[in-house]
């Protein structure tokens, strides 16, 4: 992979009401989650104001484009969106805010029945004395209408803030995880959930570790993984016990004593964990690195990628301004050969696991005219500074790319930069290879 990345749709703002390109945004417009559905046809974004926007790719066009499809309002900041695997013509997605998970049905309608006997065109009841004959209602074409309707509300199961949801491969159950607990739900049952992980100590005074992310295995419906603020990953097997407090496997990298500081624990906290599509590997993101783990090797990661090691000497300042607590997500490409994650200054990074090459790109209005090819960026830490290099001290830490998504089959990526959504594609190769 890692061919030149082309701007596909520059700068789709989820807040489509703003006419000026550089309109200021509010906190509510900040995108908080991005997710492709299983075919890659649909892309959903959620923001802090509780809006979900769904984009659809044009299947017939030579170069896929994403059109704004639908926007719906939920209360509160949307933390995660997960699509359900498609089973019929409709699409379903799960969204969660801090407390409540909701299931939505996204359906398209392009036909409308006309010719009712008892109702008139506006839907009012007809005066029966005017009805003299029977007719069969017919379906007439109409403008495509997308309807998003809430189907289920899964509430009252979380005391702490929900940070993850994950649909199981059995397509019947899903899990929701908050800081201290993970619950298992059946998609059809809203008034009952099962608690499968609980790390809340008896005395909250003894609390030293929280759950940061969780995900089901893509193929084995009994396996799930969750990450913690201490940098550990726990693989749990639901067949072993009803309450998965005892892990099947514990993945933890031994601490490097030479690098030890008061910030060691904070930067080891895992902000995101993702199974590879194959189910063989885990991808985790902590503050400075992205790591690939082999499910069969618990004592250390398989690969470690330095995302922005130049920040290591600045940890105290980043602690002071709270940036050290930023939670970056990570993503696999469809073939599990490339991993991607965001950084500061609207930079995002991609690492090719096979060639060991990596690239830094920027998602910004200035560099993203449609069809333009993104230029690789470089951060220099002193020493020779080439033209177009950025020095560490001029990085903008308010511009962080926390949420990224990779199309399941093609080399198309969605990048959320604060309130803007960028979609990029691989210029040379539409199909994925690797």
């Amino acid at each position, binding site marked *: 992979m890692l061919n030149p990345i082309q701007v596909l749709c520059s700068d789709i703002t989820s807040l489509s009401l703003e006419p000026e390109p550089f309109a200021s945004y509010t*906190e509510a417009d900040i995108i908080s989650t991005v997710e492709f559905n299983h075919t890659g046809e649909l892309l959903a974004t959620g923001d802090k104001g509780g809006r979900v926007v769904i984009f659809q790719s044009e299947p017939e066009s030579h170069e896929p484009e994403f059109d704004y499809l639908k926007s719906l309002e939920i209360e509160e*900041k949307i933390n995660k969106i997960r699509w359900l695997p498609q089973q019929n013509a409709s699409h379903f997605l799960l969204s969660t805010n801090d407390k409540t998970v909701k299931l939505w049905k996204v359906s398209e309608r392009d036909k409308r029945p006309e010719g009712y006997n008892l109702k008139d065109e506006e839907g009012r009841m007809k005066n029966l004395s005017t009805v003299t004959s029977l007719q069969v209602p017919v379906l007439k074409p109409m403008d495509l209408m997308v309807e998003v309707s809430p189907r289920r509300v899964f509430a009252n199961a979380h*005391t*702490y*803030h929900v940070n993850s949801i994950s649909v199981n491969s059995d397509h019947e159950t899903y899990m929701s995880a908050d*800081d*201290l607990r993970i619950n298992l739900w059946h998609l059809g049952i809203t008034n009952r959930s099962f608690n499968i992980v609980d790390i809340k100590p008896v*005395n*909250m*005074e*003894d*609390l*030293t*570790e*929280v759950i*940061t992310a969780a995900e089901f295995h893509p193929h084995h419906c009994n396996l799930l993984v969750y990450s913690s*603020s201490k940098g550990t990953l726990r693989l749990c097997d639901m067949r072993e016990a009803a309450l998965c407090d005892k892990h099947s496997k514990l993945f933890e990298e031994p601490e490097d004593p030479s690098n*030890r*500081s*008061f*910030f060691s*624990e*904070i930067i080891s*906290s895992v902000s995101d964990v993702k199974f590879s599509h194959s189910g063989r590997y885990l991808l985790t993101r902590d503050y400075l690195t992205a790591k690939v783990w082999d499910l069969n090797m618990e004592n250390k990661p398989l690969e470690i990628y330095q995302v922005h090691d130049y920040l290591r000497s600045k940890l*105290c300042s980043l*602690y*002071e*301004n*709270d940036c050290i*607590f930023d939670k970056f997500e990570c993503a696999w490409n469809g073939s599990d050969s490339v991993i991607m994650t965001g950084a500061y200054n609207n930079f995002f990074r991609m690492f090719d696991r096979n060639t060991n090459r990596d690239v830094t790109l920027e998602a910004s209005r200035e560099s993203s005219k449609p069809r333009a090819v993104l230029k690789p960026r470089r951060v220099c830490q002193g020493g020779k500074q080439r033209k177009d290099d950025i020095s560490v001290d001029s990085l903008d830490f308010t511009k962080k790319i926390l949420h990224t998504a990779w199309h399941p089959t093609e080399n198309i990526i969605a990048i959320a930069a604060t309130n803007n959504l960028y979609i990029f594609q691989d210029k040379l190769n539409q199909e994925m290879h690797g």
Partner: protein
Amino acid sequence: MFPKGTKRKFSDSREEPVAGGEDVNQSNLAAVRMLSSYSLQRQSLLDMSLIKLQLCHMLVEPNLCRSVLIANTVRQIQEEMTQDGTWQIMTQALSAANAAAQCSADRLVATEVLCRQTEAAQGEQVPKPFPVVGSEGCPAEEVAEVGMTMSTVSPQAPTSYLPGTFGMDPCWEEDTGEDDDDDDEEEDSEECGSGSEGEERERDSLVEDTRTAEQVFGTFEIKNPAPSPDPALEELFSDVDASYYDLDTVLTGMQSVPKMGPYDLLESLSSHGPSPLSSSTSCRSDLNELDHIMEIIVGS
């Protein structure tokens, strides 16, 4: 960073350079300088962390993970300070100060003992805002940014108490003859001209901070002692889960260190929920009033 448990060799640092022994003494001096710089940085990190914990309920989005990580950082620092003896010295000094002081809302109890200079010697006491932490003003900025509805000076009080009481090196405490150099207050903690300058700087911050604390306590004397809950704030956090307030007892969970006065202070600093101090088993009667003051400041 320096290995844990490294004891500072103060006897070495206090020796006058002598011929033949100069190199050894200079390298010892350098080591002392580095260590005192480290302890200043560590102290400022501790102060910063305590402010963050105190203000965590003021965040737009309450974040349990962040609070836990900060609390763990505080615990780590305290463990290290315990190991190298700093913590015990501080708590001894504090308890001595408390025993000697009158517990009135008007005065910071530790002032008399730890700050050897009387207020008269300091000249006219002009209440003016000072940086919260000795030489780094950043925590104060952070406080300001949060936009607290309470007096912006108030959150500084508990933390200004801390550097004042805990930042003192035990050996330097005996050295009362040093002149205070007010100009050192703004110096970057990185710069360490000599060990004695570090002392002066710490003492300055001590003096200034205690003055700040007195000013704050004085302020609260004038105001309604029980701050009325801000309706806007209440509304903002009306649906914040009360379980977050359990975190105020996180710091009390440090079983490894003997419970003593300072922990009560730390508890009250991080407390922002109901009955923050009732669970403390070692609440000393002579600190009750001080704790009460802390509660008011923290705004429980």
